[in-house]
């Protein structure tokens, strides 16, 4: 005979953790603003070129025409007389593409390395962490500069290079989370009821480690975009694809004569990363129950 838990209570709503996180996220004005900002930028980048069909490489007016002087190039022209507005609309595609791809590479390498090191510990951890430390002593931008210079500045190379130089931070974070969670009793319980290593790593620990990793992944997109912009500023971007970075790179010598050539694409990058960062912060609050109480 067993005693039933007699406490008579109406069943509380079983809210999925993700639903709860979204509820918190929704209540943050800054996070919603970030989401709005990024949505607008993404939509403009995707559909803008269809509505404003001007070739960003085409010379349309006199070089270095300031904004609002001619209707042909409402935001002015660059040093070659190309339409700034066309560049700004199209340029987001390459920048966002490189940013997201690089962030994906970063996250995948980072989680893979961190998960294996943090789960297996011992010599696996030793080897992987030494490699991670090695990558961390190389100043990331310089390393990326070297890689892009050696392997030619095309979009895939730029994305790959950014991924290769940025994964160590993610790996450390993933490792710390895996180490913490693998010591929790539900992982031991999982092993007792017959779960294999693969299941424990990817189906038990990873979902529970996901919250900080998603936050970091979001912020990584921002960092990758900044990296891409930095490389472009140094002249290391694909010269055949219009991007905000390329606009900055080719305009940087004319800053003092024509403020708009760098300010405008730079502002686009700033707004994009701002959107991403605000979303990241919002997710952090949403996933972090400690902050939620405050």
């Amino acid at each position: 005979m067993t005693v039933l838990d007699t406490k008579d209570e109406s069943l509380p709503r079983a809210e999925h953790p993700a639903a709860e996180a979204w509820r918190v996220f929704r209540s943050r004005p800054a996070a919603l603003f970030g989401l709005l900002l990024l949505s607008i930028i993404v939509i403009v980048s995707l559909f803008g070129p269809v509505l404003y069909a001007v070739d960003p490489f085409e010379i349309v007016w006199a070089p270095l025409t300031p904004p609002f002087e001619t209707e042909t190039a409402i935001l002015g022209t660059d040093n070659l007389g190309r339409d700034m507005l066309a560049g700004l609309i199209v340029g987001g595609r390459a920048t966002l593409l490189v940013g997201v791809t690089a962030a994906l590479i970063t996250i995948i390498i980072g989680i893979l390395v961190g998960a294996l090191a943090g789960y297996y510990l011992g010599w696996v951890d030793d080897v992987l962490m030494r490699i991670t430390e090695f990558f961390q002593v190389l100043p990331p931008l310089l390393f990326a500069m070297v890689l892009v210079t050696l392997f030619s500045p095309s979009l895939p190379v730029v994305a790959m290079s950014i991924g290769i130089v940025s994964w160590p931070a993610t790996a450390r974070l993933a490792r710390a989370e895996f180490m913490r969670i693998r010591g929790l009793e539900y992982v031991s319980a999982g092993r007792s009821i017959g779960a294999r290593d693969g299941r424990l790593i990817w189906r038990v620990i990873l979902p529970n480690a996901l919250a900080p990793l998603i936050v970091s992944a979001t912020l990584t997109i921002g960092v990758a975009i900044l990296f891409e912009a930095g490389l472009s500023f140094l002249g290391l971007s694909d010269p055949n694809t219009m991007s905000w970075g390329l606009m900055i790179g080719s305009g940087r010598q004319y800053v003092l004569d024509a403020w708009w050539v760098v300010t405008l694409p730079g502002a686009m990058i700033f707004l994009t990363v701002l959107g991403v960062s605000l979303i990241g912060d919002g997710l952090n609050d949403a996933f972090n129950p400690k902050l939620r109480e405050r």
Partner: protein
Amino acid sequence: MTVLKVDNIVVDFATRRGNARVLDHVNLEVNEGEILGIVGESGCGKSMTALSIMGLVPSPPGNLTSGSIYLEGRDLVGLSKDEMREIRGNEIGMIFQEPMSSLNPVFTVGEQIAESVRLHENASQRAAWERAVEMLRAVGIPEAEVRAKSYPHQLSGGMRQRVMIAIALACNPRVLIADEPTTALDTTVQAQIFDLLEELQKSRGTAIVLITHDMGAVAQLADRVAVMYAGRIVETGTVEQVLTMPRHPYTEGLIACVPHLQPDPPEKREPLLEIPGVVPSLTELGDGCAFAPRCNRALATCTGRQPVLKTEGNGHATACWAVEAELENV
């Protein structure tokens, strides 16, 4: 002589689910050289009572809504922050449950004791250090001069709790509040700390408020005891009265549901008495007795009105309609 008198204090906490009355008209008295035990389960308000006395109720969200706390006749409620700071660590000392995390990891234990001395007495650095060493000796730490230069992580849990006691007693306070001082410690270490507390209480005449969930600890150490449930005191009296003749059904349950060590255990194992259900949420308390939904002696009145403490001739007081009815019928 009454050293500390807690007079009808009410503490409210603003939570997302509404107001939680964490302490509901709590009255306590502690006499000089006496040990008062406060027992109850987690969330019953025993730790909050301690924090209220210390003036450390986190605010917001907490708020001491009404009542007074008299230390040797002086009302602590309404004192300025600076005046209250002068009292903490000086006239009232406190030790906590987790000796592992209650000491600052980057300072030596000697520094941490000496700091207390220097805050409250006009002592030189050197004099304060000497007092620290002397206190370490007083709490039974061998090689006190050497140990004073140790960092907390170099000491065992029991040693750290002794250091906490040394900090709390360094300025010879009138009252020591011990909040679950041995819960995190091993049984044999717990016994050592109990011995130490009793010895210090005798030699220094410090009044002690012992907050614990363990009836055994109360039996060992306390003179009088107050049992708390859902922010109220439900029963109070001398240890003999409450432990041998518990009146309140909750006190009865609390004593009977724990398998206490018996010197001569019976051959056959009997099921333990259970208190069904769980502690109610403080934001959802009704008008009646908070224990009524779990009580096996609940009457109709219990869900309607809250019982108040009724004192018998010998000072044994209980807040229970069923007990009151029984006592009237006798």
